């Protein structure tokens, strides 16, 4: 049996993709992540609030997401110890704005810095590209910056801002801050209208057919054409099974979907497996990435999952045509970005600055014992922080990142979501692109 081993570059971190081939087709794939850093271990025995400072350092591209998941877990600890904290709507809105800034920037960065050049590479394997010579790259970089600046009005800085605390948020913005933030957001919207979607945001958001998106010249329709040209409208399909455990303004509670059937989900069915990791077996293991399953099933998480469980009309139309192919996955990020731009504009417009930013807990944190789970929808999907605290010190801290859901390793009988999407492909170049369609973050995975 033929085996190949290739490095996956230009993702967050680095991965090795080992492919098994039969009759010129991928028969199995192993996705390997190295360079483990051990944040969960580092947190042990530290004061609980240190998690707010250290967990953002899990990942440079989704540091706000980790901060928010962490504060939710800490607030649940208070609840388990008998004190349910009241978080004002203002604090909730600010957390959501921060998270949206991170998601919006992530999706723009990923589409313009990763997907577009990678598509060129699929068309011409000798294509090298050079970001510093590409005008659109600079325009996208500027939009990315504006998106993060918008968020930094509330979070102080990105990456690694500190702005959450048990009981709310630490910032107390003025009306003038909101006006300035809105200005930054408008600049991002202008970039997306001109380059990403090729039309006004409102028009894009009113669509319910893939054809409408494809009819207007834009970076997105260019990408769709290229993907169809290379067969990514059929390739990269997986189980067509989705999960969104964190909350969103577009749906109620935690949900899962099998194709287009949407049902309630419960975090208690989440199971973390150490199969094939160095943690389970130092010698036989081959990756530092754990795997996460829902009721022992692998599910896809991320923008596509969120749009599928929220029954988004436009995504459903893409899905009807292309199922959960790589193309659908890529388009989902662009569509989600549009919704988030709109939503964030509304949030900034409506935030009630009169409410307190934070209502401090009554219980002294040094005597806090209990446990809590924080779940949010990070840019790449459901992110879970789970902590046990004893007398104010962390007993254990466990993090399940989105990449662990999508890019874990199962076995031949029960492959993971990404493995399933790779099986049957006939070239490494395509496998490389399909892996990237999941927006791989090896950094998060090897926390």
């Amino acid at each position, binding site marked *: 049996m033929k085996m190949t081993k290739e490095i996956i570059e230009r993702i967050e971190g680095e991965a090795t993709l080992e492919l098994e081939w039969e009759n010129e087709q991928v028969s199995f794939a192993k996705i390997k992540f190295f360079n483990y*850093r051990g944040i969960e271990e580092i947190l042990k025995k530290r004061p609980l609030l240190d998690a707010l*400072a250290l967990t953002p350092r899990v990942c440079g591209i989704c540091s706000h997401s980790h901060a928010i998941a962490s504060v939710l877990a800490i607030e649940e600890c208070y609840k388990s110890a008998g004190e349910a904290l009241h978080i004002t709507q203002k604090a909730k809105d600010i957390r959501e704005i921060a998270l949206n800034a991170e998601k919006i920037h992530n999706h723009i960065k990923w589409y313009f810095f990763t997907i577009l050049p990678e598509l060129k590479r699929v068309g011409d394997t000798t294509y090298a590209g050079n970001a510093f010579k590409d005008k659109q790259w600079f325009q996208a970089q500027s939009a990315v910056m504006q998106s993060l600046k918008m968020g930094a009005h509330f979070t102080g800085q990105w990456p690694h801002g500190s702005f959450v605390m048990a009981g709310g948020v630490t910032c107390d913005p003025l009306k003038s801050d909101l006006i300035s933030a809105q200005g930054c957001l408008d600049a991002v919207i202008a970039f997306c209208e001109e380059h990403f979607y090729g039309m006004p945001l409102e028009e894009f958001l009113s669509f319910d057919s893939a054809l409408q998106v494809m009819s207007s010249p834009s970076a997105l329709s260019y990408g769709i054409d290229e993907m169809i040209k290379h067969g990514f409208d059929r390739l990269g399909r997986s189980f067509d099974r989705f999960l969104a455990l964190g909350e969103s303004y577009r749906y109620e509670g935690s949900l899962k979907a099998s194709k287009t059937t949407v049902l309630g989900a419960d975090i208690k069915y989440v199971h973390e497996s150490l199969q094939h990791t160095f943690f389970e077996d130092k010698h036989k293991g081959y990756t530092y990435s754990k795997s996460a399953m829902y009721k022992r099933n692998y599910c896809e998480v991320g923008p596509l999952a969120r749009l599928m469980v929220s029954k988004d009309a436009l995504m459903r139309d893409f899905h009807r045509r292309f199922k959960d192919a790589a193309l659908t996955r890529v388009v989902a990020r662009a569509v989600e970005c549009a919704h988030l731009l709109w939503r964030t504009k509304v949030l900034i417009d409506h935030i009630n600055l009169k409410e307190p930013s934070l209502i401090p807990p009554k219980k002294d944190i040094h005597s806090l014992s209990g446990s809590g789970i924080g779940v949010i929808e990070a840019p790449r999907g459901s992110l879970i922080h789970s902590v046990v605290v004893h007398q104010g010190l962390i007993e254990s801290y466990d993090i399940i990142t989105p990449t662990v859901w999508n890019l874990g390793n199962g076995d031949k009988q029960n492959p993971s979501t990404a493995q399933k999407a790779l099986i049957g492909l006939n070239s490494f170049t395509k496998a490389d692109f399909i892996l990237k369609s999941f927006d791989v973050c090896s950094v998060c995975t090897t926390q």
Partner: protein
Amino acid sequence: MSHKYSIIWLQGLTCNGNSHSFLNYTHMPSFAASFDMLYHPLWCGAEDFMSLLNSDVTFDFLILEGALSHDERLIQRFNLPFYEILDTLAARAKYIICAGSCASFGGVFRLRDPEKITGALFSGKEKGGYWLEKNNIINISGCPVHPRWLVETLVALHHGEKVLLDEFLRPKEVFSYLAHHGCLRNEYFEWKVDSKQLGEREGCLFYEHGCLGPMSHANCNKILWNDISSKTRAGSPCLGCTEFDFPRRALYETQKNMSLPQTPFGISKRAYYSLAGVAKSFKIERLEKKLIDEND
């Protein structure tokens, strides 16, 4: 115009935060006009990494991001032990720039195994990191590094200027300042008015909330982050992320000695506590009130 300077960006044990922070540089086209990014792990650079590694080209800057280790079980890149790559490239670089606290001192990830995981020249505060000696290293600490600290250091070197460094090999133009300088809460600090609780514009975070601004070297509150804000402006304490001992324990609590906080950097206990005593003995009504009182 002088010729372009070339950069290779290499990652050790990292969260990628310094790369993403660099991407927040406001004048990127101007930077790109003077520099060639031969290789960066996250986006398309001018060259293929393996050909660079196997060639004998010399280049101007090796930017290191992340903590370093000689132990190949802890870190590898391109299926090679990390030290092979680092040693090869370091030998051909004119300057080695440590971007962030991990590459400078070991940072967060050093805590897992301080014997084996270190910064380039330092392990925490001790000399002797990945290398014992090397005379072309500049540390630009911070978790993450500020894009301007990095870019402005590179540009100064490109202009052939001498960059003055402090005892931890950090550029003095950035690290002679303290995070405290320019914080909007300075007046509360002067008059010892504590922030009663987080989430408010008023009060200083030094007395109860663990702010390390007065002992952390960085110009955060001078140049601001993302061109707009900073931790203390967003109501959170400075975490001391530019210092060799980042992250300290209990970052949201003020470490006290006989109920007195630590003194600011370079200020004697006698000077600080006498002044603090006097300041505290006055009750400044304006500072006890809300900054903006809607009922006034």
